[in-house]
């Protein structure tokens, strides 16, 4: 019963969401419905469990290492920070990936990352923090309860998906390592493993591996910024950035770095991979902005996947990907055309 209600609650045609005002209207409506207990199932934490997601039997599941399973199962939906758009199907989320380390075709990561070793996993914490060190992922995650959050993901290539992540706020993690007053930026680094990642061996690639991304400290501390370890009620599949990835929903997808092995704090702005590779095309900030086009294509609209051949499901792109209320203040007074 509750499962059906959830399906219905999530089953809102995304084509209806064309403007921020309508989106907010719906949020209010759902919140009103919740408080009126018309949809009691929506408020139950239990529904965020893996069982709440319909995964077709013929698709692979990723239970994750044994030590992670209990944590994943007890994840609770955070309704305040979740959008109510219809979810992208699980199949799309696990087969349509930009993870260039495993190949540049969208289907490559799902094909070639299946044997990628994600456990055991270590993360190095370094730079301007009181507690640097080399930590096991298990210890990194230990004190954090997982939340289930439905975010929009807008790729810089003008397609988008709505994805339910399992993770915890990056801010909570950062606080544990006690950054010094000099920590102005956070750098993230993806694993460098030429044996497992074919594209890192390619002679024709222009990215200088390993992949590096970064955030300003206030961006990293924003409650929306998520460290994800799961998706769709399961552990992260390797093609989606297992075992630990960043999710920054108001920025283009390439900011949300995958398979992180290093988090570094510094006073200076990190040299991020795409920015270094093509500085005129990809800025450090990379906030979703319909008003600033990529030099080679428009960012005014996006194809929201899944789209069918005869109706590409084109929707208007929203400033900050629809998260302007939560993050626009971070960029007050900045010329967003210059700091794209």
């Amino acid at each position, binding site marked *: 019963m509750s499962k059906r209600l959830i399906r219905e609650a999530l089953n809102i045609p995304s084509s209806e969401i064309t403007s921020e005002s309508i989106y907010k209207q719906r949020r209010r409506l759902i919140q009103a419905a919740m408080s009126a207990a018309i949809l009691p199932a929506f408020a139950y934490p239990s529904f965020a469990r893996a069982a709440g997601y319909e995964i077709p039997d013929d698709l692979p599941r990723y239970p994750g290492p044994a030590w992670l399973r209990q944590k994943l199962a007890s994840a609770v939906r955070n309704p305040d920070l979740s959008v109510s758009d219809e979810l992208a199907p699980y*199949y*799309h989320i696990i*087969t*349509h990936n930009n993870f*260039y380390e495993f190949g*540049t075709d*969208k*289907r490559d990561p799902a094909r070639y990352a299946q044997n990628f070793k994600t456990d055991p996993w270590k993360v190095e914490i370094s730079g301007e923090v009181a507690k640097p060190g080399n930590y096991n992922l298990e210890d990194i995650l230990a004190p954090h309860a997982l939340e289930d959050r439905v975010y929009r993901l807008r790729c810089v290539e003008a*397609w988008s998906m709505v994805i339910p992540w399992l993770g915890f706020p990056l801010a909570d993690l950062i606080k544990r390592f006690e950054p010094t007053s000099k920590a102005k930026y956070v750098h993230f680094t993806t694993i460098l493993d030429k044996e497992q990642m074919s*594209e890192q061996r*390619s*002679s*024709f*690639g*222009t*990215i200088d591996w390993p992949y590096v991304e970064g955030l300003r400290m206030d961006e990293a501390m924003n409650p929306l910024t998520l460290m994800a370890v799961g998706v769709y009620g399961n552990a992260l599949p390797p093609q989606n950035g297992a075992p630990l990835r960043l999710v920054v929903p108001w920025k283009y997808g390439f900011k949300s770095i995958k398979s992180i092995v290093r988090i570094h704090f510094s006073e200076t702005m990190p040299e991020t991979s795409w920015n270094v*590779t093509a500085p005129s095309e990809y800025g450090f900030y990379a906030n979703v902005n319909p008003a600033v*086009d990529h030099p*080679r*294509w*428009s960012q*005014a*609209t996006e*194809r929201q*996947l*899944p*789209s069918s*051949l*005869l*109706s*590409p499901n*084109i929707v208007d792109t929203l400033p900050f990907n629809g998260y302007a209320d939560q993050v626009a203040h971070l960029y007050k007074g900045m010329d967003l055309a210059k700091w794209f």
Partner: protein
Amino acid sequence: MVSGEKGRLLRWWFFFLLLLSPLAALFVNLLNDNLGADPAKVIVKELGFWAITLLWLTLSVTPGIKLLGWRWLMSFRRMLGLYTFFYAVLHLLSFATFLVGWRWDILLTELTKRPYIVVGSLALLLLIPLTFTSTKAMQRRLGRRWKKLHSLVYPISLLAMLHFIWQIRSDFGQQLIFAILLAILLGYRLYLNRRS
């Protein structure tokens, strides 16, 4: 080997179906849900790949005859050229239909503002006169001018190459191969020109 008229016909049908097979494969994969989560993008990319591949094959006919002595290639040059146009048109149509959904506002900005789409459209536009003057009758009627007109294929190939290069995100392996092949194909013409 079958000889005479029957052999020619057989060979014609063989090549005709062979060059149609990429489209057929795309259809079969689409129907079997084998094109992944974003079939639209895959279809557009594949059709573009075959258009440029066929253009390169068309350009290989002359060197094939002169260097390898494969004179039979000549009778397939028109077919290769027409298939190039066929795949290029499908490439553009599938872009406009599957990716843009015929939204004229988007199409207009894409066709005027995006350098790679401008260049690609120009290449396709220039293919039109070549396509419609490809018949034997037109070849006879135009005489010497036919050859002049059809040397448009060289600038077209450069435009297509540029269009392809502008798709590069980070890995340029495929584009490098096509560029090297084009350099050989066009370089051979320069060599022939200088010698004569």
